[in-house]
């Protein structure tokens, strides 16, 4: 697959609080040959407030988005925001029911004519682009960076609607970050809820829920928490001060995965837009570079030791073969084949360095 062309729904937060997600997503897609066609004059999907009011109202707002896409001939759409994704996906599911679909049309007065699909940017990255191609694009590996992936609650749930990855222990983002060179630490709270939009009406929610996530990330030794959801990012990053007031002392930067992709692809700094994060990420990168240097030194040492071992083994084998030559032809054949095998292994080891 050389190029992908797909409709794009940025979501409202992309214009404000998650503009770094928006910028890095566009830059990374450009780099990977994914053509994004923004839905013209798109509207808000209604988010939690709409589906909390009425399912048909929520679906009607989603339906207008798809109708706008239709006008531009767009059927397949991707979005970076899992909350938008869930609303749009649920709307499409519900609208398969004719009565529900008629209720939605009573609100929009714009019946849909095309087949529509909606997926997340993350899904396209792992399913269409694939981790191998991503690995191939890496110019500045994230080797030495210890990360935990935080998927949030909606990326994989509800399972029947999202149909993406394991709902309890997703690994798509893990694989993607590994492809960028980062060390992905096991993180048991990958899909725990951070409190979502309830951080505004209820002050006690974020310190407790987002706090628990940051706490665990710190405990497993992460340099940073990688996210894929604007709401999660805001709760974990912007509100980290509020959380710290609740007694958690660690500072953890919370970048979007697309920002790390932009950095690993060596895209311009404006594309990665790390300066938009509230908690500074640069100390984490500095730490990464120190660690990377240590790792490389270790690897060189190990490779040298391996090569030495292989050399000695080869020598021993050669000597044995010489001895065996006197003993008889059968034994010699067998032994020298063994020696060759060992040598081959040493060569492969050398190639890795």
């Amino acid at each position: 697959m050389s190029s992908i062309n797909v409709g794009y729904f940025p979501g409202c937060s992309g214009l404000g609080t998650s503009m770094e997600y928006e910028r890095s997503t566009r830059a990374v897609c450009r780099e990977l040959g994914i053509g994004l066609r923004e839905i013209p004059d798109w509207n808000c999907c209604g988010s939690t407030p709409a589906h909390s009011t009425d399912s048909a109202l929520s679906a009607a707002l989603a339906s207008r988005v798809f109708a706008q896409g239709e006008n531009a001939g767009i059927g397949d759409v991707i979005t970076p925001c899992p909350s938008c994704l869930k609303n749009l996906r649920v709307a499409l599911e519900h609208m398969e029911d004719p009565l529900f679909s008629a209720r939605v049309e009573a609100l929009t007065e714009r019946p849909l004519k095309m087949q529509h699909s909606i997926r997340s940017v993350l899904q396209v990255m792992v399913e269409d682009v694939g981790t191998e191609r991503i690995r191939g694009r890496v110019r500045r590996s994230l080797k030495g960076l210890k990360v935990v992936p935080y998927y949030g609650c909606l990326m994989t749930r509800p399972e029947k609607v999202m149909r993406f990855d394991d709902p309890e222990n997703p690994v798509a983002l893990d694989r993607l970050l590994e492809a960028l060179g980062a060390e992905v630490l096991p993180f048991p709270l990958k899909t725990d809820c951070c409190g979502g939009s309830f951080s505004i009406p209820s002050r006690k929610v974020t310190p407790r829920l987002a706090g628990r996530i940051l706490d665990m990330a710190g405990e497993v030794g992460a340099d940073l928490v990688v996210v894929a959801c604007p709401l999660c990012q805001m709760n974990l990053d912007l509100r980290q001060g509020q959380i710290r007031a609740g007694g958690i002392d660690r500072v953890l930067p919370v970048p979007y995965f697309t920002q790390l992709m932009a950095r690993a692809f060596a895209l311009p700094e404006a594309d990665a837009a790390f300066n938009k994060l509230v908690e500074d990420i640069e100390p984490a990168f500095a730490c990464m570079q120190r660690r990377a240097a240590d790792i490389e030194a270790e690897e060189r040492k190990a490779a040298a030791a391996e090569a030495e071992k292989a050399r000695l083994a080869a020598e021993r084998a050669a000597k044995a073969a010489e001895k065996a030559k006197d003993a008889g032809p059968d034994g010699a054949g067998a032994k020298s084949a063994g020696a060759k095998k060992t040598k081959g292994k040493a060569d492969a080891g050398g190639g890795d360095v």
Partner: protein
Amino acid sequence: MKIGVFICHCGSNIAGTVDCAAVAERASTYPDVVYATDIMYACAEPGQDAIIAAIKKHGLTGVVVASCTPRMHEPTFRKAVERAGVNRYMFEMANIREHVSWIGKDIEANTNKAAELVRMAAAKLRLDRELKPKSFPVTKRLLVIGGGVAGIQAALDAADAGLEVVMVEKQPTIGGKMAKLDKTFPTVDCSSCILGPRMVDVAQHPNITLYAYAELEEVSGYVGNFDVKIRKKATYVDWDKCTGCGLCTEKCPSKKSYDRFNEGVGPTTAIIIPFPQAIPKKASIEREYCRQFNKGKCGVCAKVCPTGAVNYEMQDETVEVKVGGIVAATGYDLVDWKVYSEYGGGRYPDVVTSLQYERMLSASGPTGGHVKRPSDGTEPVNVVFVQCVGSRDPSIGRPYCSGFCCMYTAKQAILTKDHIPGSQSYVFYMDIRSPGKGYDEFTRRVQEEYGARYVRGRVSMIYPKGGKLMVRGADTLMGTQVEVEADLVVLAVGAEASANSSALAEKLRISYDGYGFFMEGHPKLKPVETNTAGVFLAGSCQGLKDIPSSVAQGSAAAAKALGLLSRDMLDSDPQIASVSVNRCVGCRKCIEVCPFKAIQEVDMRGQPKAEVIETVCQGCGLCNATCPQGAIQLSHFTDNQILAEVEALCRF
């Protein structure tokens, strides 16, 4: 023909939605019907007496009873008419309960339908002929499939009564799941102390032949005379030579093999004797872990074996046995609990299954009976038990209760306190199911005397934090979320029908339910029989049950088998095929389709003709539907009879 028709009310079961008197009235107008009446309970003694009296009074030569399913009471009524001097095959039933009164409430429609079913039965009866059974000799040998506690009980009971028994066990040792248990509830007596001697009895009984590490390959034949093929899997050790000294298992260099018997608690070797009390106590090689097989060189076990029993060239071997009856006692397997990613799905070493915990508790287990955390070998203090993992969970297709987890969890909580006096157990449960002798008292003792904290609610998630496991649950009685910091979590994993049970059922030609459990003949009255004559069930293969129930069923199956095989001759069902020699053209089509090889070609004045071997024919009628001449007819289900039923229905 003089037909009598009896319409059963079955109390209100039928009469509630069928006007039985009206059905009887309509039946009295059907051809050859000379007597028709409705009756309160046809199957009860007064009902049977009334039928007999009517036969005598009206000189009836055929009887129709409209009541429940013939699968239930056809034999009952056949015996009754026979007592009145009418051939038992001059009898038909109309199923107006399961197929009419119980599936709809419209009295008009039900009454009409019942009357039509009676008309069909009467039309069929008019073409019935008197039939007489033939008798055939019985092979007095019983096959028991599965060497768990149910199979052992069945085998020993049958063997003690003088029957020859062949036992097939797919693992290298008998003992089944019970052999893995440390103690048993509610007495907390040692499992191997009570099972061990029974296992030895199996090995030493002169009437029992044991094929361990063997599987049933094929079954043919029929009740009284089954032909069975057993595949003895290659153990790569000649068991005639092996003394069970265990030297090979000490010296085997492949020390990281999966320990099946110990449920993977600690590794084992590639050549194994599953456990010290194994029966037979013989070594076998697990090929997938063996260096000789994987790398082509090693041979350590062969070198150290003092009797030269190891044989890497060994092949599977097939044994053929003739038996008269079969007891299936294939037990159960644990549900694959790894589908619960919220419990770690196998990623957290300190989350173990109940069966693994049994092995940890067992003095002969891999930890020597010391409870230790698999992660760091430390002794746990806070132990959380989670019940209903894989039970009562429609979302994974296991909506049923496994039946024994409540009890073994209580037992394990008691044992935990015994092993680690300073420990605290927490048990998450939904309902405590303890209907057995001394069972509920037992679940009270664990709370009152042993201080286990029972929490009514499911666990939503388990995750590691700081060397501990955080258990997020609910206490629905308090109405709150609860959290426990645990050192060890034991999942009371539910059970399911053992792997490949459906394939075995198909070999035995018995039915199984949607979960793979074998179907009993009747849920109440034929708990150990199946619908295939001569095949019986014992233990959890029929439905999950605890040890006492499995043992009881083992004995019951043995009793049923003995009842069958105590006779020298069996009566064959005369509802079999027969050939009209005039019509038969000797085309051999019937011979080709017969699944039982019950038809042979004979020469009749130079003409080839088909002939049915009466005691072999099972009465399926496949030949009847195949015969292009209509020359071979299945008695009691002839073409004319079935067409008469169709006609009785469609003409009106």
